[in-house]
Structure formats: structure tokens, C-alpha cells
């Protein structure tokens, strides 16, 4: 089962390496990772540069004990301020992908229609190619990729997942 963990960390050099290293040396795999400077109302930070948010997707490989260890080991890192597992909570989940596909001029309108259905954007058109930007829940991005695959995907980049808890509760 895949778990989504939101980790608030100190925005200091080496922290990403500490988190990534912890996963590597204990043999846990990271499926996806997103990290950037952040704001968290529970932790005052007037200058807005003290904290980063890491959002990790981790596969427990069928062993629920692994998540317990991962979370406890992460929590032991001095630079980890707060963490929570959002696999079961009501969250908004988002990923973003840029997909460059082959498309002849005759196929453009067809691709355009597909993009409308997925509320994706065409962000570039070149000779024989179209670049599509699609954002949303991971399943939607997956579906968009599958729909575009028959055209011939030349390049694909995709961000790590980010999540935010719905309502007043904090992530």
C-alpha cells in the first residue's frame, strides 16, 4: 500500500540529504518526493524562510510495521519538525505533468479536445509536436498519460505529489 507523508523540516542545507539518506540506508523506497520552502501557521516564521515541506509517497510493501518504523525514524531527525501520514485523511492531492507528444497538424484538434476533457492545457506547439500540461489528482494525471500514449510520447516530466488537508485541520 502506498502512503503519503507530509513532513515539515527545517529549511537548512543537508536536510534533504538526511531524509533521503535515511530511506536509502534502511532499505525503504521513495515513490515520489516534492519539496519546497513553505508556510505553516503552527510554526511562526515571519521571514518565511525557516521551513520546508516535504511530501513523500512511500510503498509499505505489504508490511504495515515498515510505516511505523519510517515515521519514527524520520521523527528522530532533529531537523524534522512535524510529520503526519495522510493516507487515510481527507486531503487534496495534486501532481503536475508536462508531456510532449508527436502530433501532425491534422491531429491537433483531436488532442485539443482530449485536453479539454481532462482540463489540461496545451502549452506549446511546434513542428510535429505538442506539449501538454496536466495537473490534478494522481489518477487523473495517470489517465491523461495513457490517453496521450498512442500519439507517441517524446518526453514526460512529472512532479512529486503534494497534499493539503481539507478544512481547518492542519496538514
Amino acid at each position, binding site marked *: 500500500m502506498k502512503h503519503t507523508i507530509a513532513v515539515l*523540516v*527545517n529549511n537548512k*542545507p*543537508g536536510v534533504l*540529504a*538526511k531524509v533521503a*539518506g*535515511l530511506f536509502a*540506508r534502511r532499505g525503504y523506497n521513495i515513490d515520489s518526493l516534492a519539496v519546497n520552502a513553505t508556510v505553516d501557521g503552527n*510554526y511562526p516564521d515571519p521571514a518565511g524562510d525557516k521551513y520546508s515541506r516535504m511530501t513523500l509517497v512511500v510503498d509499505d510493501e505489504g508490511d504495515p*510495521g515498515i510505516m*511505523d*518504523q519510517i515515521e*519514527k*525514524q524520520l*521523527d*528522530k*531527525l*532533529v*531537523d*524534522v*519538525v*512535524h510529520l503526519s501520514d495522510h493516507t487515510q485523511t481527507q486531503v487534496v492531492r495534486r501532481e503536475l505533468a508536462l508531456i510532449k507528444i508527436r502530433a501532425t497538424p491534422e491531429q491537433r484538434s483531436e488532442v485539443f479536445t482530449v485536453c479539454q476533457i481532462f482540463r489540461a492545457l496545451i502549452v506549446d506547439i511546434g513542428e510535429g509536436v505538442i506539449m501538454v500540461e496536466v495537473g490534478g489528482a494522481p489518477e487523473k494525471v495517470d489517465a491523461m498519460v495513457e490517453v496521450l500514449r498512442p500519439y507517441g510520447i517524446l518526453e514526460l516530466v512529472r512532479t512529486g505529489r503534494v497534499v493539503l488537508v481539507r478544512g481547518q485541520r492542519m496538514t
Partner: protein
Amino acid sequence: MPTMTGSQALLRVLKENGVDVIFGIPGGVTIPIYDALYDEPSIRHILVRHEQAAALAAEGYARRSGKVGVCLATSGPGATNLVTGIANAMMDSIPIVAITGQVKTFAIGRDSFQEADVTGITMPITKHNRLVKRPQDLLETLREAFYIARTGRPGPVLVDLPSDVSTSQVEWVGPHPNGDFQLEGYHPPGEGDPLAIAEAARLIDAAERPILYVGGGAVSANASEPVRALARKANLYVVNTLLGKGVYPETDRQSLGMPGMHGTTYASYAINHCDLMIVVGARFDDRVTGDLKTFAPGAKVIHIDIDPAEIGKNRAADVAIEGDARLVVRALVEQVAPRERGAWEESLDQYRAEHPLTVPESDELTPQQVIQAVYEVTEGNAVVTTDVGQHQMWAAQFYLAKEPRQFLSSGGLGAMGYGFPAAIGAQVADPEAVVFDIAGDGSIQMNIQELATATHEQLPVKVAVLNNGYLGMVRQWQELLYQKRYSGVRLAGNPDFVKVAEAYGATGRTVTRPAEVRPALEWSLTVTDRPCFLDFRVAPEESVFPMIPAGKSFSDIWETHPNPSKGADR
């Protein structure tokens, strides 16, 4: 606000944290720090001969004193030489602060002379580390380092100091009463959940066959006094890990000693038959448990640990108490009921009588005899350090510890070379103590250069080498598990250790016959101004028993040699 150099500020923070001794070796980028030390008579610098010994001596100092040990090394090779010592402190949860020099901030990342990515290298083997890139971060980083090293589950913290930071001007700000650093992500547990403690007390009261299992965490937490009170009030028999020796006096009737691979048969028996295990600051290491599936099969587990990640890591806990062992066990003492458990106590006493640990009868000089004699001559009062291997296990078996911080050994990492530097650190921490390093002829050679340090510092450390001419533990496994195919274990080329000691200005004696053992030991106690090196030429192929082979169960225990015809086909 007064300003001073980064190096002077470093020394002031050390003093503020009660540091009066540091172990180190200077190098190019730490000259500014040594220059500041020149004017700082209240900090004693002990010049070791290899940085690994600086880290291990700092650990010996920390273990004996309960304070934070400090080691200092230069950039690059100086820092990488610390690595084994730092890893050892991590595995055994020993509070040390390692200060390393680093090349100037603008030279970092350019493969400069003596540059190494020390915070990168030590990331997995430190509790925390930090490269100080800006002078204004120096005070906070150093104060954090001491706080993190000694609180919670103790461990090594490394601070990497570029030389331009140690020469730059720093505005001195005294420590804030509430600490002048913010560690939002670091909250060591305290008293433990009262509901869990009440449930634990209920389980203890109800148990018919309980065992108290204490580890190094009970030493770190200074929990010996409440552990003893708990054992006495609830009539609990006690087993201890290698690092937990002395938390409960091993000389007491209720102590069963150490369980596990080379523990006593009766300690392993007790664990195998108990219905409740009260675990205080121990982590179910594989050398204790063997096969986890068959370890303590009928036992419920109360697990008390300050590190939540240890609870449930190797063995599920029925009652988990995250907290300071001293406070948690104190609360337990108040809540448990006094009770006798006649049948269980009798069965343990009887089993112990039937399966004793024995010193083998022999005309040869045996290692067990030597340790027994060290124990008797020192009346069980010495501070004992060990290296790693057969001698370590014999020392654990036959040198019973009465007090915590008396038996210092490399447990988790199993680092040969630990014993002698650790003995130096322990002797510095406790100048009045009789300190014995029990070593093997293999492991002593991993830090034998520290004879120079100990001689120069006039430290009367005793080194008892059990010299069997082999890397004995590997030889033992090859004998028992690899059809006596001895590969790479013969220590041909050993020097005359006494001559080596004498060349350094220490003294020593070679002992070859049983009758010479006690006189040599008694003589060593009269040497008070220099190290004393005793080279005991012991039976070469003696093995450590009992033995539960790696990954096996109590039912697989070899109480004695499984194939007594040893040596016949060699």
C-alpha cells in the same frame, strides 16, 4: 557585546558545558583552535596518536563520567579517522561531541587539500551533525550540539568548522536561560504515559514468571537505583545486556547475568521460559535474541525506552512506554505490589545450579582463569574496558559488574580497538579508579600506538592481553562452523608486547604459567605512574561457551564444545 574569534567562542561554549578535557590531534585547519587552546589552561588537551583513539577515548570518558566527551580532529583524514569512533558512539548511544576542522568556506566543494565531506560521511552515524557556514551560527550550533548529544537517547553530534569561521570575529552572547536555540523538531520523551505505566504494573503483579531485562539505556538514564528497587520489591530476576552490566549488581542472587549468544545458559533459559519481560533501555539486538521467532515465545513484553523507534522495531510490545527510564521505573516501583514467586524462583535457582558458568580445569593457562584472577585481585572494583572478540565475552562472563559505568565495551558496532583508548578516557575521567583494559592480541594492535599517549599522560591503565596467537572469535567460528578451516586468523608476527610497552616508556610482564598470574596482577596494581602491559600467553584454541550460533534459538545452545575431539584432524 564582546567580540572574539570563532575559536575562542568555541572554547567558551565548551567550558559553559562543563568540558575540562578534549582528546585530539591538530592539523592545518584547526591551528586557530589550538592557538586559542594555548591561552586556555582550564581545558586539558590530550594528544592522542590516531584520531580514532580520540573519539573512542572521548567515549570512554563519557561512559565513565556520565558527561559529554569531546574529540577534536582536523579536516579530511583527521575527520575520516574519527568515523569508527563516531559510529561506535551512535550504536551504543554514547554522548560525544566531535569537532572537526574544515577547509575555508570558499574552498568547500573544490576538492581542496585535506577536504572531505564530513557531514555527508557522518550523516548515518551521528545523531545530528552540522556544517557551520556562517560565524553568526556558531554559538547556536555548538550549544545545540551539546544539548542534543546528552538529552533523549544520547549519541554523537558532529560540528564541522571551516577555518575561516574559527578565525572570524563572533559576537559573544551568553546562554539564554531557556536555551538560545529553537529545536521545534526535538522533544525527548519524559515521564512516560501514566496509563501505560499503570498497565505495566498490573501485568507485573499478575505475572507468574517475570524477568527484568535491562540494557544500556538504563545506564544512560541513570536508572540503576530504581531498577534495583523494582527488582527487590517485586522479586524480579534480572538479565542484563553487555551494555547493561552493573545496572543491577551481577553479584546478587537475583541476577542471572547476560543472555544471548555467549551469555549464561540460565539467563537464556529464564528468557525462554518467562511469561513477562520488562525491558528497560534494551533493543532486542540479534546477539541477544538469535532467531526472533523463537525468542521468549511465551512472554508478554513491557518495553520502556526513550527512543520510540526502538519500540516494536524487533519485537512487538504489549505495553509500550516511551520515556526516561529513571522516571518510568521509579513510578513502577511505587505501583507494583511486593510478591513472592516461589516456584519460578526455585526453578531458576535450580537451573542455575545445574548449568553453572565454569572456569575450565586445566594445567594450561586459560583465558577464563586470567579474567577470574583479575576479578579477584581487583575485588570486583576495577573499571573494565574490553575490545571485541573472545576476550570480550569471557570478560563479560567472568568479570561481574557491581555498578553501572564499570564495564565499558563496544557493543553494537563491535569495534576492535575500542578497549585501550576507552580505558584512557575512563582513567582521565576517574583518576583514582583501577582501570583494566582486557584485550586480545589482535585487537590491542589496532590502537597500540596509544601507549605513547597513556605513558606521556602518566595514566596507570592496566592492559591485560589474552594472547592466544589468533583472531580468536573468527578462529572459533571456523573451528565450529567451517570444519576447522582456519583462514586468515593466525596472528603470526605478533611482537613481544612487553618490549613494545617498554619502548614507549610503559612497563609490563609476560605471563606463561598459571602460578604467575596473581603475582603479575598484584604487581600491576603497584604501578601508578605509567601503563602496565600484561601479556598472558593463554591456550591458543580455547573457545567461548555457552554459544548459541547466530540466528539460532535457545534450544540450539552449545553449553560446552559440541565436538570435543577438537584438533585431531588438523
